[in-house]
């Protein structure tokens, strides 16, 4: 093709045509990026191309899985024995704690029945394995080996043994994409365990931490404070560890305190994670009371729909 062009127009026409073509493609790419930023086409394209994309992920995940298998197969006996011993001790400890907790949980259940709240302590979870795929450096995402076919839906919280890891943002038929709590675009409503202060933890820009950017100056937050999910917003169930405050300093504007938080979950190293199935009941402010007045049948049609606001699901993914 290039030769034909060269013969017809010796020197400059080809270059001009090439530049024009470059401009065309650059413009096309820009338009695509803008549209994708607006509408999130990526998901639709990935969903449409799932049959091709998923095997690629599996294939690319093979080396990591292979390394893992090799390390197990050739791992020396002593290390495995030690690990086994440690796991046994952990299990024993956890069981002992559980036994003690059982009584407390029962008591709690009883008290809750008395108080007429419905929140339960039971967990409905699904085990998932992380596929070792690089989704771009500093992208704070994970790929799991379960997908829509296993009942995974966008919005499900993902936890590991130590705390909250993130939430599912996209589910293909047999894989799903998780946004980690350290992603700068992620926000999670938390409560400081010691004082009960409620705030929102964002992923920090750069680095594998979370940040609490808007703590009132008068609030009592110290390094070492444990953060739990507050359950506000209805995306994450309450009471799961999110992280531990490592540093508190005044913000540059001087109007808030800013706390750096180390996530509780083992974000870089978890291989198996748990997907929570029942999402928290929306635990936000109570639904607005129905306005007192004459029966609604008597009201004009436009005045009725004020009281049926659904409870907010804000504060999950900005």
């Amino acid at each position, binding site marked *: 093709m290039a030769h034909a062009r060269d013969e017809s127009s010796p020197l400059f026409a080809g270059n001009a045509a*090439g530049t024009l073509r470059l401009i065309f493609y650059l413009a096309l790419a820009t338009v695509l990026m803008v549209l994708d930023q607006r509408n999130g086409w990526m998901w639709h394209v990935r969903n449409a191309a799932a049959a091709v994309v998923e095997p690629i992920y599996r294939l690319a995940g093979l080396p990591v899985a292979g390394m893992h298998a090799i390390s197990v197969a050739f791992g020396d006996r002593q290390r495995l024995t030690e690990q086994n011993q440690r796991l046994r001790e952990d299990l024993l400890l956890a069981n002992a704690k559980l036994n003690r907790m059982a009584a407390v949980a029962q008591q709690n259940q009883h008290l809750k029945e008395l108080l007429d709240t419905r929140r339960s302590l039971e967990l409905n979870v699904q085990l998932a394995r992380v596929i070792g795929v*690089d989704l771009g450096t500093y992208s704070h995402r994970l790929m799991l080996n379960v997908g829509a076919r296993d009942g995974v839906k966008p919005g499900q919280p993902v936890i590991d043994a130590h705390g909250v890891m993130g939430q599912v943002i996209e589910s293909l038929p047999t894989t799903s994409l998780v946004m980690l709590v350290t992603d700068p675009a992620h926000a999670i409503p938390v409560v400081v365990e010691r004082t009960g202060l409620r705030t929102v933890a964002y992923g920090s820009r750069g680095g594998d931490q979370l940040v609490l950017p808007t703590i009132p100056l008068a609030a009592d937050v110290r390094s070492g404070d444990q953060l739990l999910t507050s359950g506000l917003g209805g995306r994450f169930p309450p009471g799961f560890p999110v992280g531990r405050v490592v540093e508190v300093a005044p913000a540059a504007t001087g109007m808030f305190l800013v706390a750096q938080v180390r996530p509780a979950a083992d974000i870089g190293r978890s291989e198996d994670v748990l997907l929570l199935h029942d999402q928290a009941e929306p635990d936000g402010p109570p639904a607005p009371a129905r306005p007192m007045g004459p029966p609604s049948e008597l009201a004009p049609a436009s005045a009725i729909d004020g009281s049926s606001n659904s409870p907010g699901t804000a504060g999950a993914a900005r």
Partner: protein
Amino acid sequence: MNRQSLMRWWFTATLVAALLLMLVPLPGPLAPFKPYWPALVLLYWSLESEDRVTLGLAFAVGLAADVVNGVVLGEQALRLCALVFIALRFRSRLRFFPMWQQALAVLALLVNDRILLLLVRLLGGASLPPASWWIAPFVGAALWPFLFLLLDDLRARWRIQ
């Protein structure tokens, strides 16, 4: 005819392998050292067989890369288009550079690619990446002679054009 179809297969295989290599993660501390494989392979082919690599192909490869691991659809398509355009424009000069000079040129191209990526990311509202983010182009340029010789040697051995 057979040689030509073999060549076409080999060409496609290298591009697919580049996409896969892009997806395979390196262990934690090595992660920033991962070169941008699709760019390197596309560069090789644009220097060695000009009529196969066009801007349209670069765009298509970029789109495929975006679908498998991109943040925004069209980002890598834009970067690869710019890269291939420059490489094709200076192709005849780059081909006759000695290897170290060629590696330097590749370094310049890859750094340019990173700058483009940075611009796109910043416009998209992302934050500035850490300094280790700039290591990858240097690793790519250091790998370039080996990749070039390997691919050239394979091509000569199979006598495909």
